[in-house]
Every structure is written in C-alpha cells, then in structure tokens.
C-alpha cells in the first residue's frame, strides 16, 4: 500500500468517525424536528440506497427495483399489523411475527426478480429492474384488496418506539440498523461469497469457466440486497405510519437512484452521504418560493450536473480531494459488459 492510499484510508476513517459521533450525539445538538424527521429519513433512505450501491459496487448490477422491494416489505407490514379502519387485509398481527413475515415476503419477491434478471447484464439489468419496479407500483395501485390507490394508513408502530412518548428512540433504532447494515454489507463483501461476486462483476466469463455458478451468485446477491431494502421499508413504515403506491412510484425509484448517484455508485458510504444531501435539499427547497413547487426540477438538475461533472458522485470528489490513486470510473465497467451475454449454458 503506497502512502497516498494510506493517507486516504486514514482520512476516510477520520471522516467516518466524525460522522458516526455526530450521528450518535445528534439529539443533543439538533432540534427535535431535525432528528426525528430529517436525520431519521436520511438514515433509512441511506439503507435503501446502500442496497443499490452494494449491488452496483460489488456485483456490477445497477438495480432500480430496490424501492419496489422496500415497498413490498412496507405494504406487507401494513397489511399484517393494521386492524380495521384502513385499506388492505387488516390482519391485526403482533409486531414481531409481522416483521419477520414482511421481510420474508420481500426476500421471496426479490428472489423471483433476481432469478429473472440475473441472466441480464449492464443496461439490460437496469431496464428489467425498472420494469419490475413500475409493475410493483401498478400492482399496489390496482389491487384494492392489499392497498389500492390511496394506500394503507394508520400503521401501528411498536409501543417502545412511540414518537410522542420517546421522540428520539426511532432515530436511535434507525441509526443502529443503519450501522448494522453498513457493517453487514462490508462483511459480506469480504466473505468468499462477496469476493466471488466481485470476480463476477469484473469478468463473468472467467468466473464461469473457473466453475462458479455466475447466475446463482448474482441471484443470491440480489435477494440479499432485497433483504436490506426491505429492512429500510420497515423503518420507513414506522417513520411514516402509512404507505401508498405513490411512495414507491417512478419518482421514488428515481429519488433513490439520485441518492446513490449523488453519493457515488461504488462505495457504501455514498448511500448516507447522498441521502443527507437529498434530505437537506428537500428540506431547504421547501422554504424557497420558486423552488418548493418545482422540487423535482431542482433534483433533476442537481442529478444531471453530478452525472455530467462527477460520475463517481460526492465520494468520487472526496477521493480526489484526499488524493487517492485514480480509480476507474464505474461508468466504464458496464460499457464493456453492457449487452453481452457472457454466461455459457450449464
């Protein structure tokens, strides 16, 4: 390891440490609105974006289906825990089994999506997952027995997280989950499975001829990332107490993509960095007359500028500032494999 790489590593650690300390002491520093609304939102949006970045950074798969999986978990939890007075099945389950089943359903859906998409690469993968996302949105919009256009409201939150009694607790739980997700994703990337996945990202044909089942690995990675997205969906439902098809519409799908791209598509830290920027822009745009109505125009322009100027997002800028060795642009990776079908049969 050369000295510039080492200096970047320590700069990363210092920045990451400051970030975590600030996050832990946030309730002492910031107002309740900031903590309970903005920072909590930042953390769970970061979890969803992290599931996208995990797939893109370690698997070379840019998935637009993450928001739909987050929605599947959210809708499942909503259907299971509500008890009358809203749309959906109103099954009135206890919280704990409902969470487990909601996560299971989301992972199952992710597995099916992954099975269908994992033989496609690059831009095809992006398109297929986008289609899944839109279909999931239309499904919840049209099928009135599980949601319908207006969605599910009044979804209960576990008592110990009640916002009125304990305004900070949901924030701390979300923070803990976000840190766990980060650690888990870093860990998985270092397991033999994660290393194989990175090998597949770089050269699926070679990995296949070495005897690895390329499609199976990509499928499992997709299901695992679906699980992470689903965890984000549970947190979202607790935070918002309702979920509607518009929550997982094309705009939401693009919002999470924007977060991941603003942060940087190839490092997990980018997820929360991008989410922070997104939430801040969202918050401050509300106060500016001209912009508040046209929030998505602003987001679109920010997104466009980032893609044009720094395709590696803010993390890419950060790495340039901390003078690490130049990394290859992830944008170029998909190009080579873009439309090929490198997996031999069997």
């Amino acid at each position, binding site marked *: 390891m050369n000295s510039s790489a080492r200096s970047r590593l320590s700069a990363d650690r210092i920045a990451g440490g400051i970030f975590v300390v600030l996050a832990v002491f946030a309730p002492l520093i910031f107002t309740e609105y900031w903590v309970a609304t903005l920072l909590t939102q930042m953390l769970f949006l970061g979890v969803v974006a992290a599931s996208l970045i995990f797939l893109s950074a370690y698997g070379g798969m*840019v998935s637009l289906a993450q928001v739909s999986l987050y929605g599947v978990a959210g809708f499942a939890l909503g259907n299971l825990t509500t008890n009358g007075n809203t749309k959906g099945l109103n099954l009135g389950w206890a919280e704990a089994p409902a969470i487990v089943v909601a996560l299971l359903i989301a992972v199952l859906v992710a597995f*099916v999506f992954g099975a*269908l*998409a994992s*033989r*496609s690469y*690059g*831009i*095809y993968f*992006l*398109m*297929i997952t*986008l*289609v*899944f996302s*839109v*279909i999931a949105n*239309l*499904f919840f919009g*049209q*099928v*009135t027995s599980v949601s319908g256009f207006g969605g599910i409201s009044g979804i209960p939150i576990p008592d110990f997280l009640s916002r009125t009694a304990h305004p900070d607790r949901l924030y701390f739980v979300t923070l803990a989950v976000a840190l766990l997700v980060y650690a888990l994703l870093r860990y998985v990337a270092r397991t033999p499975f994660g290393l194989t996945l990175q090998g597949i990202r770089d050269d699926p044909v070679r990995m296949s001829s070495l005897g690895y089942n390329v499609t199976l690995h990509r499928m499992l990675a997709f299901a695992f990332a679906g699980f992470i997205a689903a965890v984000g969906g549970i947190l979202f439902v607790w935070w918002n107490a309702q979920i509607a098809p518009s929550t997982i*519409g*094309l*705009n939401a799908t*693009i919002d999470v*993509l924007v977060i991941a*791209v603003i942060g940087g598509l190839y490092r997990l830290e980018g997820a929360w960095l991008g989410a922070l920027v997104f939430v801040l822009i969202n918050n401050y745009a509300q106060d500016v007359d001209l912009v508040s*109505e*046209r*929030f*998505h*125009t602003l*987001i*679109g*322009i920010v*997104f*466009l500028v980032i*893609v*044009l100027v720094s*395709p590696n997002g803010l993390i890419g800028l950060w790495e340039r500032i901390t003078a690490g060795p130049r990394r290859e642009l*992830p*944008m*170029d990776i*998909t*190009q080579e494999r*873009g*439309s*090929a*079908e490198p997996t031999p049969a*069997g």
Partner: protein
Amino acid sequence: MTGFAAYGSLRHVGRAVLLALVVFPVIWVLFIASGTSFGPAIDDPKDFLITLLNGLTAAALYFVVASGFTLIFGLMRVVNMAHGAFFLLGGYVALRTQRNMVGGDAGLGLSSAQVSLAQWVVPALAGVAVVAGVGLIMQQLFLRWNQGQDLRQALITIAIAIILADQMLAHYGGVAQDISWPGTFDKFVNLHVEGIQYTMTRLVILGFGLVIGALLWFWLQKTRSGMVIRAGVDDRDMVSAMGINIQLTFAIAFVIGSALAGFGGVIGGSFASLAPGVDANWLLNSLVVVIIGGMGSLGGAAIGSLLLGLTTNFAAAYLPANYTYYSIIFTFVLLAIVLAIRPLGLFGRPA
C-alpha cells in the same frame, strides 16, 4: 458437476410450467372463462373478436412508441429513459395547439364535432416536430460526447425525464386532458362480422401502426440511409472508417426515434388522456415491448407490441369479474416467461 442430473430434470419441470403458463390462458379464454363478463369465446365470438381487435389496436400504438425506442437503442446503445416524457410532451404540445386552433371556450375539452381533420393533423405535426427537436438537442448537448458509456447516458436521460416531467406538471397542470379526434374519425364502423360496430378511431390507430411499421421497414431495408443505420448497428467503427458520417446518422436516428415517441403521444392523448404519470406508463410499455422483443430489433418491437397488447386486453376482459384488477400481473408473467426462455428477448442478439 454432481447436481447435473437434478438440474436437468429441474429444467424439464421449468419447461412444463412455462408451457402450462402459455397453454392454460388460451384454453381458458376459448372454452372455460367462467365468472367473466363475456364467457368463453366459443359461446361468445363477438366479444372475443372485439377483445382481439382491441388488443391489435393497442399493439399498434405500443409499436409506434416502442419502435422509436428500439431504433435509438439499436444504433447508439442509448436507453432513452426520457422516452415516456417525450411521449407526454408530444401529446401536450398537440393538445395546446389544437385548443388554440379551435379557439373558443374549451374548459371541459373539445368535442370531436368541433374539430376538423386539419385541426388534428396540424397539432399532431407540431407535437412531433417539438419532440423531435427536443430529442435532437438532448442528443447533441448531453449524449454525443458520452458515447459508449451506456449507464451514464441512461442516467442523463433519467435526469432529463425528471426535469421534463416536473416542468410539464407546472405548465400543463395535473388534471387529465385529452386531444380531440376530428369528427371524421370519431364514429362507428360496421365490420359486417358478427354485427360488430367498431370505433373508427381504433382502426385509424391500427392503420398508423401498420403504415409506420411499413415505412420504417422500407427505410431500414431499402434505402441507403437505412442501410447505413443497419451497418452502424452491426459495427459502428467500421461504418465510420468507411468515410460515412456516423454522427449525422446518429442524429437522424435520434430525431426519428423521438418523433415516434411524440407521435405516439399525440395518438395516445387522443385515444386516452394526458396526465402526470402517463409518461411512466409509456416508459414501462416501451421497455416491456423491447425487453420481450429484443432490444434494437424492429421485428422484435412488432412481436413484443403484439404480445403485450393482446395480453393486457385479454387479461382485462377474461379475468373473473372480481379479479380484473390483477391484470397487471399478466404483464409481469409475460415478461417472466420471455426472460426465462430468452434473456435477450425473442429477437435479441448479443452485440
């Protein structure tokens, strides 16, 4: 490999499931169809034929829009995520032009009796021209210097789609509006089959689909510029090395592809309505059609449109009455079947 035999038998099971998924709906529609509003096709051929015609006309519109998408992708490997926004923009421009041409108070929309043929054709041309221009600007300004970076180009078009959609919401409002067909089209035609009276507008759409398909085929197969495009699809560098101005070819393909989205928007806005969210639906339709048919293949776009049009219409008509809301699942099943058999689509081939 130890699990090879098990894997082989699994394949047979998979194929059997796929076959069942294809065969059962056909049998259902023809002979069973219990609890549906129409009943099986053998008892009620009239409604079956109407559903078939509805499917074909929907397919024609899908084809008009998706052929533009596939043309752009085939040549330039650009996935134009703004295609749905282009569709909506074409529709809105035509709508405004038509309202201005007809004049008077159009608060509740125009009726077809007020609209002459020219008052539909001129707005249509305006919509097509504006979208073709926007497409050209987008390609020259943002995509041209990113050639070959297909993810980056897709992200750029997504950003433009976000901006366009939000600006259209600002300028045209969130209320659903529709372009009025001219009185000439807006009537029923007796088909002299089972006594079916069928709307002429749908037949006009079918005609548009067929004519555009034929023109595209003629252009790509029989003319010099079409030949250059086909050569460019196969080997861009070689075409350029032979002294052909590939950038001009790219620009032409992008203009035509965008224009088709715009024209689709005019037809779609006349046939159904224009509202925020319609862009997402049409991006979905175009994506599904080209994923089924195979990216970049015109024939694939035709087959994909046909499959999608028939699937959506038959699912909506032949599901038991309480379950018609589930018809969206059939779009997914159609996609799943095709992807399971051919990950690159029916007519897709590796680049």
